[in-house]
């Protein structure tokens, strides 16, 4: 039960919470930190400009140097026991900078290499009559983008209903097997993507039940998508207040109607987020598609008949080719794929802000 406070009281309480008298910073502390940051940086920049050490070695010198300087600052302000703190802080900032650098490097390389490939034909044509050595003006990735969209749609059609049903079982039906179902869903989220591909290959393709096709790829993707959808949907259904359920039941609604007409609509945006996250999880998976949907230079629209190309497989095929134009094609396909992922990611974030309306 929430207790109601006078709003003014809450404000006073929050202000009290924010004053940490033991965290007071002194001028001496600020000055020491400034010196500890500036001196190693100056040394490293000097080394970089006036010596012929390789850049990587200078970075390797910088980190211990920075830790030593910060340690000195710590001893000066807080005594010996500040040393470990300063080491932690320097490395924590280092780890954060590292992750930003990786992210920016990936983004920059995608944009700088990928934009070279982008053109109207690249986005609208397929790769029939295109070999790795064909110049960049001819052919495109439209067939692969179409293939990716087709396979993702098929897998969503299969995995989303089952995933949401699993979540409903855990939060609404609350049968006896809930802990086991949860455990299996979690274990399933760790299935390597290549194993999902092998599973569909050995059960359905090698036995002749279905062709190497978009449908087979969609099944392999569905194996990977199901746990993500189920787990996320479970979290959002859990946020629906029980008052709504009891209210609906008290009005004489059946369980099925309560779930379908009250609980699910209440968690609508959250469930859309779950679907988006599921799609984002699988859209770049390559290994299962190599085994289940193969590749095809022509545009394929029948999901059951022929092998079909996809963006990840096209990247896979074009990397490490000795022809620069083929490599640029790979970067272009990667850029298209990353844009798709970024759109999904942003949509999930925007929707995730208010999961329950």
């Amino acid at each position, binding site marked *: 039960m929430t207790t109601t406070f006078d709003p003014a009281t809450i404000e006073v309480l929050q202000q009290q919470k924010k004053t940490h008298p033991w965290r007071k910073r002194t001028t001496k502390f600020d000055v020491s930190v400034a010196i500890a940051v500036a001196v190693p940086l100056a040394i490293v920049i000097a080394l970089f400009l006036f010596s012929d050490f390789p850049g990587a070695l200078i970075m390797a010198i910088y980190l211990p140097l920075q830790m030593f300087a910060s340690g000195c600052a710590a001893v000066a302000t807080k005594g010996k026991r500040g040393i470990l703190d300063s080491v932690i802080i320097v490395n924590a900032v280092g780890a954060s900078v590292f992750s930003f650098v990786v992210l920016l490097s990936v983004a920059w390389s995608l944009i700088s290499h990928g934009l070279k490939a982008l053109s109207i034909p690249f986005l609208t044509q397929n790769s029939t009559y295109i070999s790795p050595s064909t110049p960049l003006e001819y052919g495109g990735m439209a067939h692969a983008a179409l293939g990716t969209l087709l396979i993702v749609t098929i897998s969503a059609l299969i995995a989303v209903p089952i995933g949401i049903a699993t979540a409903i079982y855990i939060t609404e039906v609350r049968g006896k097997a809930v802990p086991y179902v949860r455990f299996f869903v979690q274990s399933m989220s760790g299935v390597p993507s290549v194993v999902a591909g*092998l599973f569909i290959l050995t059960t359905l393709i090698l036995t002749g039940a279905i062709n190497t096709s978009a449908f087979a790829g969609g099944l392999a993707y569905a194996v990977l998508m199901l746990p993500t959808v189920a787990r996320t949907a479970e979290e959002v259904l859990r946020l629906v207040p029980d008052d709504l359920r009891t209210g609906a039941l008290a009005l004489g609604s059946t369980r099925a109607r309560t779930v379908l007409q009250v609980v699910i609509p209440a968690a609508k945006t959250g469930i859309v987020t779950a679907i988006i996250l599921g799609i984002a999880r699988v859209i770049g998976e390559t*290994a299962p598609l190599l085994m289940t949907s193969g590749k095809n230079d022509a545009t394929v629209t029948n999901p059951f008949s022929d092998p079909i190309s996809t963006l990840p497989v096209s990247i896979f095929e074009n990397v490490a080719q000795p022809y620069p134009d083929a490599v640029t094609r790979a970067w272009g396909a990667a850029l298209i794929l990353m844009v798709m992922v970024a759109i999904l990611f942003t949509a999930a974030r925007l929707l995730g802000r208010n999961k329950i309306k």
Partner: protein
Amino acid sequence: MANIDLEQRDLQAAATSHRGDRIFNRSITAAAFVSLVILAGIAIFLGAQAVPVFQQLGFGFLTSTAWDLNSDPISVGIFGMLYGSILLALIALVIAVPASLLLSIFIVFLAPKKLASILTNAIDLMAAIPSVILGLWAFYMLNPQAAEWQSLLHDYLGWIPLFQNDSGNFLGTPFIGGFILAIMVIPITTSVTREVLARTPPELVNAAESLGCSLWTMLRYVALPYGRGGIVGGIMLGLGRALGETIAVFFVLKLIYDTNWYHVIESGGGSVATLIVSRFGEASGPFEVQLLLAAGFFLFLMTLIVNMIANLIVSRTGRLKK
């Protein structure tokens, strides 16, 4: 959270009183067991492919290292690949575990709110980059950099057996493979450890600090013991991902059918998942495909066990019980 907890008994009573509800309940229950069916299906169907392989090759399939289908009798074994997968995962964890712990400490205890939320988003975005794109990036952007780092390691620390390199070739090494895996593991591990550390009761943190604890003392005696189970679970989840990752490693690791025990900056190593992808395209016949399916079976078993342990640890610490 809800303030009225529905009793399971009430729900069952409500659920069985109406015919439509019974159908609804049964179909939902059936759908909930699909994940179990798929897991069992993978185990049974891939396991069935492993049986004839074992009949022909015996335990040599698991204990030897070779991939030669033309010799008579054929010599095939995946020990080097299984070991290589573990070696790569260990390298990834050596890099990713300290990095994710430091990242989550920075996000939870040190960074101003705005920076913390930017960093959290950046790391989530890192998790969303498809592995094929990371592989492409690693092949063209990371490889030259990493070769330079490794040659420095070799120049200055080459006397340590770990950093031996006799060939002078620093590409396709387990180190680069492990590094790219670390980049994929960091977001997974960080998201768990961050959540666990953020759940440290603020009154404990404030009490520790007001008693004069330094940051390290507070972490050592309050935050880390409090979140120990969750942190271990997060690391195990990362390990599961590292063992099963395929494409990015395929691009940067030179696959050799030999066991590279510990020469982490020597070109060549093994990985089961990468073996499957690289041999699948040029498989010589149904028997080679069967060998790859058997290899996939052991990869599945390895990751399943790691993930099950991880999930047990994480759920026992209460992260998933709400």
